[in-house]
């Protein structure tokens, strides 16, 4: 009976939580956090990116606790993130400093530095590998040893390390408008809530925190028909970025005096969108505009979709909701969307009773 459901809550909750634990353990196997960290890179990257918190270990714990449900894991990490004081801000990070592992361009075959396929699912056949059922650790270790020996031999002729950016090449050719560096402190949407119209830094932050599926879906919609867009991936690169903070003990802001605090692995995408630009004296030229995407971890589809949406929101177009910043930015957050939808499970007895009263009144009025 309905009323019972809202009374005696304490015991009900305790029992429900026990039940949840039972579901996690009933098959009598325990996943270690290490195993998750080692074997669930895709999920870890997705969870870190949506949580906007870079910690593989915390992500792995959250994944374990949430039984692999990304919605739940992101929720846990975000809530944890709320409790962390912001002690330092990093120095400006330049993506030219990336230690590149994978880097491709769909625009130019011959990019300075060459294309590096790196690790990618793109050219795998999606056939289930049934050998994985009985994968043995000894075999794995042996394979690893051989692989590492091979790569050591090749190392000399592989571009380990930094690579020039494709966009710089296009700029030097005059195909992309040169733009000034903007080192203005970005707005942080987790410190101050967004107000419309937004700044680009806010948009990029909301997009990179967006739920992978939502960002992909809206990017796809903009590409397919709900946004007149024909982008090409100028450069997609994945690799590690070193992070430095200024010496907190003095204000020198000196390169020499800053501290290296670690690296983050990111996916960065710059898409090129050809746009007619009106020049002086009524001339029109085609130029490339840029959409930008960057996500924690290897999240290629999301980063490309993000770059499309970045461009959409930058231009705005009342015809398409994919270009409407309120529509996009207010609905793609995992924690917000899942929270509000799931709140429909909460009792609404009072509101319903109130509506009932109105309904009866209108019936009486007839």
């Amino acid at each position, binding site marked *: *009976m309905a*009323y019972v*459901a*809202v*009374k*005696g*809550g*304490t015991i*009900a*909750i305790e029992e429900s939580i026990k039940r949840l634990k039972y579901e996690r353990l009933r098959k009598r196997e325990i996943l270690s956090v290490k195993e998750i960290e080692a074997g669930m890179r895709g999920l870890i990257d997705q969870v870190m990116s949506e949580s906007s918190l870079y910690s593989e*270990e*915390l992500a792995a*714990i959250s994944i374990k606790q949430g039984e692999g449900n990304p919605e739940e894991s992101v*929720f846990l990490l*975000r*809530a*944890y*993130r*709320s*409790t*962390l*004081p*912001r002690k330092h801000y990093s120095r400006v990070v330049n993506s030219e400093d990336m230690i590149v592992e994978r880097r491709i361009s769909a625009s130019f075959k011959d990019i300075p530095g060459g294309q590096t396929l790196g690790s990618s699912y793109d050219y795998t056949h999606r056939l289930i590998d049934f050998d994985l059922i009985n994968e043995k650790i000894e075999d794995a270790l042996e394979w690893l040893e051989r692989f590492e020996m091979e790569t050591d031999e090749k190392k000399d002729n592989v571009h380990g390390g930094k690579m020039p950016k494709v966009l710089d090449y296009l700029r030097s050719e005059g195909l992309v408008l040169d733009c000034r560096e903007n080192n203005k402190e970005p707005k942080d*949407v*987790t*410190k*101050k*809530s*967004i*107000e*419309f*119209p937004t700044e680009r830094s806010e948009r990029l932050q909301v997009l990179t925190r967006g739920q992978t599926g939502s960002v992909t879906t809206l990017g796809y919609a903009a590409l397919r028909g709900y946004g007149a867009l024909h982008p090409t991936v100028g450069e997609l690169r994945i690799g590690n970025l070193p992070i430095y903070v200024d010496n907190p003990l003095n204000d020198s802001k000196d390169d020499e005096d800053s501290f290296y605090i670690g690296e983050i692995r990111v996916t960065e995408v710059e898409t090129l969108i050809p746009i007619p630009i009106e020049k002086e004296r009524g001339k029109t030229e085609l130029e490339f505009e840029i959409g930008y995407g960057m996500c924690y971890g290897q999240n290629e589809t999301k980063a490309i979709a993000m770059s499309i949406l970045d461009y959409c929101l930058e231009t705005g177009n009342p015809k398409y909701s994919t270009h409407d910043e*309120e529509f996009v930015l*207010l609905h793609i957050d995992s*924690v*917000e969307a*899942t*929270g*509000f*939808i*799931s*709140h429909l499970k*909460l*009792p*609404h*007895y*009072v*509101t*319903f*009773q*109130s*509506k*009932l*009263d*109105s*309904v009866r*009144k*209108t019936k009486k*009025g*007839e």
Partner: protein
Amino acid sequence: MTTRYNFAFFDEGSKREIRRATLKAIAIPGYQVPFASREMPIARGWGTGGLQLTLSLVGKEDVIKIIDQGSDESVNAVNIKKLVTKTTGIQETHNTTEATIIQSRHRIPEIPLKEGQILVLQVPIPEPLRYVEPSEYITKRLHADKEYSGAWLMLFEQIMKYGNMSTGADHPVSVNERYVMAPSPIPRFDNGKMNSSNALILLGAGREKKIYAIPPYTKVVSLAFEDYPFEVESFEDKRCRICGGKAVFMDELIDEKTGEKYYQCNDSSYCLEKLKSELSA
């Protein structure tokens, strides 16, 4: 890796930021102050706005009461209460008079609040004009211009269609003759309790990232036309089956055995208090 949480979950910096927004809200009654709503250990839409207010305000001496739909013992109320007491160790109560902070979803307690108490209401949609205008950019301007025809028109159309204003809960109010405000989905029955309230009323919308307030003794009027006055839910000649109480907001229930309809106080702690005082008398 082991971690401990700070008193009341948040770091002190975050609490201070939320309090700053709260102060601004009190200074401009009924105005929705944007704030950097944090992700909480409970889901967005489940009371994170109210919870952030409570956690930013709570001190070691506070006594907290948390209710959901009028009930201290509903699962969601218990869940939020658990989080507050777990991260603060403060005392909780069911007794409305005893509490210093009362966090509630969709009800204002039947027992009149007193000076010094704070009522925190959880808000799902803080924008009273949202159903007329989807864009935040535009509604913000409508508030600035005090342009509320949209809200009135909605009520007018209801009268044309149904012969009456057919709002359920969340009937819009005008605060201090300036801002039109969503009182959160409290029943119309509770709207009057906001007017010239002895207690401070704070409203928090976590997902929508807004805090707004009604300071004590502020004029709060439910929107209504001169010839179609505001009406609350009617429980005329209904009596609570448990305590015999009347003139309070009732839950409508069906007796499973007899199939008969009966009524019961929605505010469970009011009902219990009444019963207790009658027994001791």
